[in-house]
């Protein structure tokens, strides 16, 4: 039963998006009664958390902090997590100069590449967390220019406020566009003409039209005001570029002190040349996402809020609702010879399910490379019982009259049955396609009932659902 590891062997066609996925990658919407793939759902951000300290962060705070954790750092050299280490140093006690007292000094260190904060000259801090300062973006803050002028990275004299200017300009532009869009939506075409006709006589329209029009156009005066303020100085190209230092031509590169491209680009604000300028960055936050069906807007997958919990509040996956087909055993498959393959059906719900297997009608884009003879009658699957593993197994199930030429064995909610496969193509994998029809007890139907039906139906209705499935049986064996 390698089916648990090789999940791509049995693929189900998702009706909306047309892609074939194993059952473990599909969702089942209880309200639309349809299978959904990752492309048929809308993904939403549920919560932000730090992968190291597992601290949850509300979205507003995450946005301000630029999706970075406040406490945790990444090694600039290998981008793993930095840990805080302590050493005790002996400093002379201010009260009693003869006796030195030991104080703890903390520094950041990477466990993987052995980078420490002392490598770049950051002094050790005296408190365990919260003291580490990361230099600011030089394009945003003018005050940080002094730090960078020491690093010989060129002059940023005019760049100080540049980023803020650009951000403000684009923010205003976006706001103006939004207002225009809203105004267009509200009033399609406000023609002042029909208002004039209604309220003013024909004669005075020509005289009054100016006044009325000007009164009605007062609304757009604000726009023109904004028009005046909205401009920004474009980037100017400079003719003389800073020349390369002459050492580049004379001296060999010291690979040990120069950053790699990955290290350099991981800090796009400063892009340091030398590893002595690599500062640690705050750790990036991860998100938990929730998924929603695009048709009925119900949630299909919603994780728990706690970052250290991997469970779900809502988990409408196909594996829990739809009977699964697995390959049980495959004999040697020869070209154009009929062989008997054992497949297994597994019931996922807690009531009895009837399954009918039907052949797929052949079409132009056929993926099947073998023909298959399916059992004609319905297969009945027992209910899934979570306590079954604790009972002693009695392997005969007298309530199901199983045809021994059809059914291999039955155990709890599983049923192994035979199908006959004849490979039709001499090369490539043997793929069979079939349609699985099963009856599903629609528990969510009560939410769709109207008031009149409420008196009539007490039982959840049983509907027949189906899905198309392709099974890859592996390669042919040479005779």
């Amino acid at each position: 039963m390698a089916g648990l590891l090789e999940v791509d062997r049995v693929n189900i066609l998702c009706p909306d998006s047309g892609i074939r996925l194993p059952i473990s990658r599909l969702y089942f919407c209880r309200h639309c009664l349809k299978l959904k793939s990752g492309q048929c759902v809308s993904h939403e951000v549920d919560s932000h958390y730090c992968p190291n300290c597992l601290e949850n962060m509300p979205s507003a705070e995450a946005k301000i902090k630029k999706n970075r954790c406040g406490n945790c750092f990444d090694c600039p050299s290998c981008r793993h997590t930095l840990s805080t280490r302590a050493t005790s140093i002996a400093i002379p006690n201010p009260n009693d100069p003869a006796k030195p007292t030991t104080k703890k000094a903390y520094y950041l260190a990477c466990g993987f590449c052995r980078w420490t904060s002392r490598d770049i000259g950051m002094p050790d801090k005296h408190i365990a967390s919260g003291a580490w300062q990361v230099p600011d973006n030089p394009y945003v803050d003018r005050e940080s220019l002094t730090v960078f002028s020491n690093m010989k990275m060129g002059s940023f004299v005019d760049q100080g406020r540049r980023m803020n200017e650009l951000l403000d300009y684009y923010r205003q532009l976006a706001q103006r566009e939004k207002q225009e869009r809203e105004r267009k939506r509200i009033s399609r075409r406000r023609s002042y003409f029909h208002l004039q006709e209604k309220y003013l006589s024909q004669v005075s329209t020509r005289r009054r039209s100016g006044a009325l029009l000007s009164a009605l156009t007062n609304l757009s005066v604000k726009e023109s005001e904004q028009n005046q303020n909205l401009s920004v100085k474009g980037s100017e190209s400079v003719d003389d570029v800073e020349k390369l230092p002459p050492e580049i031509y004379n001296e060999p590169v010291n690979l040990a002190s120069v950053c790699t491209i990955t290290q350099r680009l991981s800090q796009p604000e400063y892009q340091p040349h030398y590893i002595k300028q690599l500062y640690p960055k705050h750790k990036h936050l991860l998100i938990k996402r929730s998924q929603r069906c695009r048709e009925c807007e119900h949630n299909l997958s919603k994780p728990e809020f706690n970052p250290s919990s991997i469970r779900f509040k809502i988990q409408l996956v196909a594996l829990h609702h739809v009977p699964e087909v697995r390959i049980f055993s495959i004999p040697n498959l020869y070209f154009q010879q009929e062989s008997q393959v054992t497949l297994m059906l597994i019931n996922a719900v807690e009531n009895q399910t009837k399954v009918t297997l039907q052949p797929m009608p052949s079409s132009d884009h056929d993926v099947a490379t073998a023909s298959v003879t399916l059992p004609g009658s319905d297969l009945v699957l027992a209910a899934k019982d979570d306590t079954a593993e604790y009972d002693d197994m009695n392997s005969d199930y007298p309530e199901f009259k199983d045809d021994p030429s059809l059914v291999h064995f039955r155990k709890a909610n599983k049923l192994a049955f035979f199908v006959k496969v004849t490979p039709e193509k001499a090369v490539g994998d043997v793929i069979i396609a079939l349609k699985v029809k099963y009856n599903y007890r629609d528990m969510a139907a009560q939410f769709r009932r109207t008031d009149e039906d409420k008196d009539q139906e007490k039982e959840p209705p049983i509907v027949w659902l189906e899905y198309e499935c392709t099974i890859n049986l592996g390669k042919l064996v040479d005779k």
Partner: protein
Amino acid sequence: MANTHGHKPSVKIGAGAVVCVEAEIRGDVTIGPRTVIHPKARIVAEGGPIVIGECNLIEEQALIINPKVGEKIDKNSGTMTIGSHNVFEVGCRCEALKVGNNNVVEAKALVGRNTELSNGCIIGADCEITSKETLPENTVIFGQSCNRRVQAERPPPQTLQLDFLMKILPNYHHLKKATKPKADK
């Protein structure tokens, strides 16, 4: 424990060294004072003698081997020298002829015959280094593709661990006795 077969091979253990009986030491091996050798460590001096300095830490399943190359055993050039304050972590394998001080060979690492470790080098876990070179000081080799970088200072010595082990190991293991160094004739 002097080897009664053959002529000279013997194990000389310095004062204060903690060498567990379960450690396999074969051949002409000199162990300096205050070195800790865990049980199931293996020090095999096949192709020549091994001299281990002081305050080293050789952990379980570490293999320090001076392998026999061909048929000749050349005593003079085949001596493997290991300095002081080195750490050989679990499962590593070291065949280098010269190992300096303050090096760390991490778990499952391999140091080949032609490499020489200077001082302060760290060979990361599962990294293999077999190139014919002397690693510059304070080199760190890490990662799946054995990236290199130079760190600013050498790794801190494991004195705390050594003290702890020297107290605890004798409680649970029999130790090999320290031998007086043989007087040269």
